[in-house]
């Protein structure tokens, strides 16, 4: 078992995640576009990865030995941009440009405009495949870096997700971790009423992943799972992170309607109040 993460670290990450959530609201409000629900659900996972777990150097975004993150659910771009800004990869001010004409911060993650994101994503079912390629690349090169693929639960309905998972298991990629943001809700409603993916943890196990189930909003559990994944040498790890769509904003929680709907001015004000940051909204 991994060591218990220090309380101070947990509270720092929690307050960073809160700031990430505020930025998600500001970004999607200002752009009048974006996917707040799945950004808020994956926030704690991305914060734990980018602000603590991953070996990164914001001064050298192309450092060869850096850990790689592929946000396969590329619609959660606002969460990734905010977390990258908190880690120092981009200026906080730039978040205001999200999804505007000419911005590096495209509506879905774009490696060409923003090279510090490892891969362009947003068509579901391809991120794990790219992550498998990156993990093989590291193995061939004898590099020790790790590769994290963050997927959504609607994405578990995509056939190529399972192709790629099969490949990661086949090649026994111990440097690969697949994190599932299991918020239970896709664009049109609950996954289990649209096209059920359960028993999802059993499916990962059947595909040769050491599989852990955690509360994806509990930093102690997230960090412990990531540490266990790092210590596991016999193949890839899957982490089923049970999360809440729209987490942190009461009226968005569990609501599929906020999958791809930005907040109105009233909703944005209320959301920021709930997130402890009442006051100015960015221009829309």
């Amino acid at each position, binding site marked *: 078992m991994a060591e218990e993460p220090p309380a101070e670290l947990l509270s720092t990450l929690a307050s960073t995640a809160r700031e990430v959530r505020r930025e998600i609201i500001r970004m999607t409000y200002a752009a009048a576009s974006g996917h707040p629900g799945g950004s808020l659900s994956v926030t704690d996972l991305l914060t734990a990865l980018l602000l603590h777990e991953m070996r990164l150097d914001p001064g050298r975004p192309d450092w060869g030995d850096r850990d790689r993150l592929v946000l396969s659910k590329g619609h959660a771009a606002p969460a990734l941009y905010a977390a990258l800004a908190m880690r120092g990869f981009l200026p906080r001010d730039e978040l205001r440009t999200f999804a505007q004409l000419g911005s590096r911060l495209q509506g879905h993650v774009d*490696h060409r405009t923003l090279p510090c994101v490892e*891969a*362009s994503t947003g*068509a579901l079912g391809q991120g794990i*495949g790219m992550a*498998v*390629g990156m993990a*093989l690349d590291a193995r061939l090169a004898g590099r020790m870096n790790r590769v994290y693929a963050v997927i959504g639960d609607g994405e578990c309905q995509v056939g190529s997700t399972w*192709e790629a998972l099969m*490949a990661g298991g086949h090649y026994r990629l111990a440097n690969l971790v697949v994190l599932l943001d299991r918020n239970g809700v896709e664009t049109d409603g609950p996954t289990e009423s649209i096209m059920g993916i359960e028993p999802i943890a059993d499916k990962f196990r059947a595909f040769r992943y050491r599989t852990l189930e955690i509360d994806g909003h509990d930093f102690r559990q997230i960090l412990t799972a990531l540490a266990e994944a790092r210590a596991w040498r016999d193949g890839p790890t899957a982490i089923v992170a049970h999360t809440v769509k729209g987490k942190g904003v009461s009226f968005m929680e569990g609501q599929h309607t906020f999958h791809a709907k930005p907040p109105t001015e009233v909703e944005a004000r209320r959301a920021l109040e709930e997130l402890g940051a009442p006051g100015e909204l960015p221009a829309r």
Partner: protein
Amino acid sequence: MTRLGTPESLRDAYGASLVELGERDPRLVVLDADLSGSTRTVQFGQRFPDRFFNVGVMEPTMVAMASGLALGGRTVFASTFAVFAAGQAYGAIRQSVCYNRANVKLVATHGGLLVGPDGGMQQIVEDIGLMRGLPGMTVVVPADAPSTRAAVREVAGFDGPAYVRLPRERLPTVTDGSFRIGRAAELHPGSDLTIVAVGALVARALEVAADLGQVGLSVRVLDLASVKPFDQAALDRAARETGAILVLEEHTVLTGVGALVASAVAEGYPVPVRRVGVPDVFGESGEPWSLLDRYGLSTERIREEAWELLRARGKVQ
């Protein structure tokens, strides 16, 4: 049928070239999707087992993996049949490769009708159109084995995505073995008409040019192996100097090389253009070369089309 040089396998040329590239570049990686014997990547796999990944029947993921490997700074070749590459994996080619500008070279074998007995299901005649529509994609359709070797070296030599279409059948040698991206090769000089062709149809273009030469007609033949980027200057010259252009391809006329040449000529130096290719239909089972005849690509039909253009120019009665 007249044949120009000894028919050679373009796939064998690809397989041998990959091994040579692998010797020179120790980071080069090759993937295949359970067709390595047919695509000839098996030769690379035997020589460099650590750098060869046969992923089984998962074309979209093969392409995504190729992108992931390429984003680490490698040159990556990925092969399968054209119908599975451009067809099954289109989304992955668009999003994982082109949208990342990843250095992935898709070498797709068994393109077009010459797949033969396996039938229309496997004979993709839409791939060139699909691939040339992708931003940043280089598209190459070699006409023989020597130029295939050159093309494989060329595409390995730049950083970015490429699609190379090879046929199942052996083709006679028609080029001098050179290939340059963005350059059309003039394989036969002429001033009365130009035939632009790719792949297996280049040999038929040369046959028709030779036949027409017997009766005193001067027909230029351009091998447009570099489909994207293509040689606008060579098309402009052909239009200006020969006054009419006939385009031959083993591909649907809707979106292929004929469509490309027609629009390029219309915008460059407008002259009459006729397209000979697969009409808006799927193929079917049959002996490979007779399939070309069946779908309107016989030398007789090509000669008739050439004659029509020559008549319109007043070169013949």
